[in-house]
């Protein structure tokens, strides 16, 4: 059996979900017999591959760049997993929603800056008005809540998805876990 191609993607999140993924420790070696990580902040590939079996997405959709990325990921992935509370529910990045992006940019780059007070407008992507979970943009196949989901959750869920075993998400994790 050829190995399943797995990608992991990092949108507006803290990378904690990726850290928790790595926390599977030596169990990753077992999984590596079944999967190939073909795209990830943890590997060197620069472009999202044409065909991916499982895409794990960390982070909410907060910028125009995130929106482009999540649509591309969806178009090239058989199974899309919302990994962690930011991807699932918006979580901490969405706490700016009641105030709007202008207010937080002002706070970060003007009020709290002692030198070079200016709001960046080139290179960095434009922020969306509202931070939203990824399922508001694309179809999500599996939701894995948690901040972050534990290494055990990752291991159990990924093993089930790769081997086709039954998966009961609510038995493993919850919002804020």
């Amino acid at each position, binding site marked *: 059996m050829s190995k399943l191609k797995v990608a992991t993607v990092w949108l507006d999140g803290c990378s904690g979900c990726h850290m928790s993924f790595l926390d599977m420790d030596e169990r990753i070696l077992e999984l590596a017999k079944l999967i190939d990580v073909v795209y990830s902040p943890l590997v060197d590939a620069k472009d999202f591959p044409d065909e991916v079996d499982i895409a794990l997405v960390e982070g909410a959709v907060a910028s125009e760049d995130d929106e482009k990325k999540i649509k591309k990921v969806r178009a090239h992935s058989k199974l899309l997993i919302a990994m962690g509370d930011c991807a699932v*529910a918006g*979580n901490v990045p969405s706490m700016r929603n*009641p105030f709007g992006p202008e207010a937080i940019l002002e706070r970060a780059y003007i009020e709290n800056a002692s030198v070079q007070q200016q709001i960046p407008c080139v290179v960095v992507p434009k922020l969306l008005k509202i931070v939203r979970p990824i399922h*508001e943009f694309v179809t999500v196949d599996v*939701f894995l809540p948690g901040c972050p989901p534990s290494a055990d959750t990752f291991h159990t869920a990924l093993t089930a998805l790769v081997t086709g075993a039954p998966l009961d*998400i609510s038995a493993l994790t919850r*919002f*804020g876990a």
Partner: protein
Amino acid sequence: MSESMGVKTLIIDGQEVSARSGQTILEVARENDIKIPTLCHIEGLGAVGACRLCLVEVKGTSKLFPSCVANIHEGMEVLTDTERLRKHRRVILELLFAERNHICSVCVSNGHCELQALAQEQGVTHISLPYRNPALAVDASHERFTVDHNRCILCTRCVRVCAEIEGAHVWDVMGRGIDSIVITDLHDEWGASSCTRCGKCVQVCPTGALFDKSKIGSDHPKYPDFLPYLNLMREAQ
């Protein structure tokens, strides 16, 4: 024995149970270890049937009944765990999450929250409705407690415990529908209100909406078990 104390027989989830006339479906279910999820209901306070999580099906009618306020009657057949009810319960929980800003990961009640626990129990893994993201206040004017309206689900437990048990009736609900909020006195700051500082409202609050300032992080379990005992002791006097 008066007429109202008569024994009734009914069926809940296929199980034949006996009950006293005047009891609610929820009371009888719990006496028989049949689990019905609840959120606004709390042992020791009057029931208001606000959250609708405890809805049950009754044979012979397509209407659903809130089991915390619906009385039993002879021969009734109740179903508490059907696919129709499970779907309604999930939607109710999703509506509660979408309505205000419940960010579990940074909540003082993370791990001790009834809303969070119910979401997990009922299999809610995401909110399919768009979030409303309302701008809501946090009132930290009280020397001991804080009210964070972002996390309030309007169960009115605080209103009821303050009026029924403490007898102060500092808490009440202002506004209508989606604009409703709980207030102290006539929408005065909590710290400047006629609050007696007893803290009962904090202990019965199911989420992180009311919390004790001396608790940090998510180390804030609540202890509402005092209520039935307090009622029992008062009745004994």
